[in-house]
């Protein structure tokens, strides 16, 4: 202590209570902040998923509790031709609808990337098929495909006189399948187009200018610049699109309910029919659970097959 400084008061910081120290402890804070989100996920995602998987191994029906029966549901499904038809239908539906959506979506995105008149307006109405609730658009498609009241048939037969009979959209298996694929493509294009458009806009125009100076043709520009730069977003959109299409329910249920004689049943609609309409919850759950391996494979292929590190994290990250 020297003579020029006088101690008037000494400040003793108060000892931190256990409560305060707890809230200062980082792991606890992290857990606390994650709790709401984790809670929601646990209640609305993990619990139903776990319950569904458990139900698949029981013989629960609507109205009676069930007992554990192990793999019996899966064994009986293995021998069920309708189940395998639903599997092949789902794979066909997903594959063809995804190819259609991506081809048309990418083309639309490329078109919209240029300066065209009413660009903003077109981009807005492009989203309409996606925003309209699926059930409503499914019912609209149901009318379009109706055997007696189809507008397409009306135009072709009564206006243009190209055919004499109304078109049978939903009466034969392959007609019905392709009709549903078309409806799904119509509904799914906006999602792909808008997302790819966003991706296209991140590609720096200086790349295209440099390519033009080097004398690259349009196709070469597309192949060498657009496609690689778009890969990260393409992988993500592809994964999501496959997941959504594979588990599609509303479109098929509203238009054909799985008919004619089960040839348009997807795994989701068959699971619903067996579980809710037919009261066999265990069997329906088993069908739903059988979707999981396919979805996991699709996700893995998308992520690791397409997502090479450069593509996953953008160029420059070799």
């Amino acid at each position, binding site marked *: 202590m020297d003579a020029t400084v006088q101690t008037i008061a000494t400040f003793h910081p108060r000892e931190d209570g256990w409560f305060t120290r707890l809230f200062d402890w980082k792991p606890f804070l992290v857990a606390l902040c994650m709790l709401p989100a984790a809670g929601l996920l646990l209640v609305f995602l993990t619990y139903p998923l776990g319950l569904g998987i458990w139900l698949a191994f029981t*013989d629960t029906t609507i*109205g009676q509790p069930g007992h554990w029966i192990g793999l019996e549901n899966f064994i009986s499904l293995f021998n069920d031709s309708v189940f395998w038809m639903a599997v092949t239908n789902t794979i066909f539906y997903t594959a063809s609808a995804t190819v259609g959506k991506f081809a048309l979506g990418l083309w639309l995105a490329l078109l919209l990337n240029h300066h065209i008149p009413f660009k903003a307006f077109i981009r807005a109405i492009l989203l309409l098929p996606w925003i309209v609730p699926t059930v409503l658009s499914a019912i609209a498609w149901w009318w379009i495909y109706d055997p007696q009241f189809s507008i397409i048939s009306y135009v072709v037969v009564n206006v243009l006189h190209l055919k004499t009979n109304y078109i049978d959209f939903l009466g034969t298996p392959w007609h019905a399948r392709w009709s549903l694929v078309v409806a799904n493509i119509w509904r799914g294009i906006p999602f792909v187009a808008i997302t790819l458009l966003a991706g296209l806009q991140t590609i720096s125009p200086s790349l295209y200018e440099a390519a033009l100076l080097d004398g690259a043709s349009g196709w070469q520009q597309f192949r060498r610049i657009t496609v690689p730069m778009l890969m990260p977003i393409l992988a993500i959109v592809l994964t999501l699109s496959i997941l959504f299409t594979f588990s599609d329910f509303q479109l098929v249920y509203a238009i054909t309910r799985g008919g004619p004689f089960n040839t348009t049943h997807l795994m989701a609609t068959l699971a619903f029919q067996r579980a809710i309409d037919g009261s066999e919850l265990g069997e329906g759950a088993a069908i739903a659970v059988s979707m999981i391996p396919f979805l996991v494979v699709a996700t893995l292929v998308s992520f690791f097959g397409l997502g090479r590190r450069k593509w996953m994290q953008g160029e420059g990250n070799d």
Partner: protein
Amino acid sequence: MTSGISRRDSLILGGAALGAIGVPIIGARAQAPTPSDVPMADVKPPEFPIEKGASLHVIRPAKFIDPDQVYWDINTKRFTETTGIPVSVNYISWEDLRPQTAVIANTGAGADIVFGWAIDPFLYEAKLVGMNDLAEYLGKKYGGWFDIARLYGTRWKTNYWHSLPIGGGTGPTVYRISWVKQAGYDKIPNDLDGFMTLCQKLKQIGHPCGFSIGHAVGDANGFCSWALWAHGAEVVDPEGKVALDSKETVAALKYVAELYKYMIPGTIAWNDSGNNKAYAAGDISLTFNGVSIYYVLKNSPDPTLQAMAKDTMHQAVPQGLAKRSPMTAGPMNAMLFKHSKYPNAAKEYIRFLMEAPQYGPWLAKCYGYWSEPLKSYAKMKFWTEDPKLAPYANAMDTIYYDGYDGPITAAASAVVANYTVVDMFAAVATGNSTPQSAIRTAVRQAERYYKS
């Protein structure tokens, strides 16, 4: 919501409801006049001492035609005025009703009474209050129960009533009189060959028939069941064994395959509204359906549709080889759950609804949409005033039901819900399968349901 509604309030509510709907009734008096055309025996009703502070929560299927709900509500309000017991009625969509019933049964909470479908009373029998006292009283007073009402109200082959049938809906032949006459017939032939020829001629004059063989839960199952029963075939025999593999089934399949050629194209894609739409558009001349087609046409403001209603007639479905017309009438049953705090009040409510001053007007104004389970109500004047309603008058006088002729179990509903029989017919009719292989597939599927 349901507590604290005084007599005065319910009178005002009733008046307001009626004023809003504009349906003329005799007035929300507590005692309604007894209809004069319902013969009844002089039987003392059973005593149900009402619990103190009772209030009821009831769920029933949603209406398809307005009078169903309007008159049910009028009857319910009258019950509240007479007894002071508030009742809340929820109208649930048909597809949601069975899962909701399952939840109520399993959780022991929710409604006191469920007016439900199909085999639900059999599934939940252990959870329901026995209805013998009510059933015997009503049967004695109103001329007895029809066969299918007894079949669905009692435990299989016993006299124990687990639920009370309220009414049923059936699907006879609906046809255009002028077009059938143009094809050379005054009424629909009752034999199979005659029916086929009629349909052939109808197609020749450009007004074909149409029956759904797609995934239409009511119409397609109804039509395919008729095809089986009219040929003497059945899904299950009285012991509960699947009996589809028979020459009668093959005959039925071949019949429908030929009939399909004379139908309007595309019925395989029809759901339950398909034949309604086509009939109202004048595209088909003949189909099987409930009274909904006729009702909509008759009450339409459009003069074209009204003319169509005048030209429409109903007839019981062709008998074929069966001893009586093979129509079934899906009954709606009142199930009183054991978890209800006011079982006496509930039974009194059901009894009140089934008595002539309430049931009579409801039945009459529903115009054949519901058919009665008690024989006296078949004698009401309105059945004969409009001759077109004749097949609905005795709809519950049938022995045919889903899963005929075996015991009524969950398996019968599962077969209907999964379209086992419908898909069998559809596969053969479209030429995608031979009768034998379609039967094999259907038998395999049906056996999976019936073995458990």
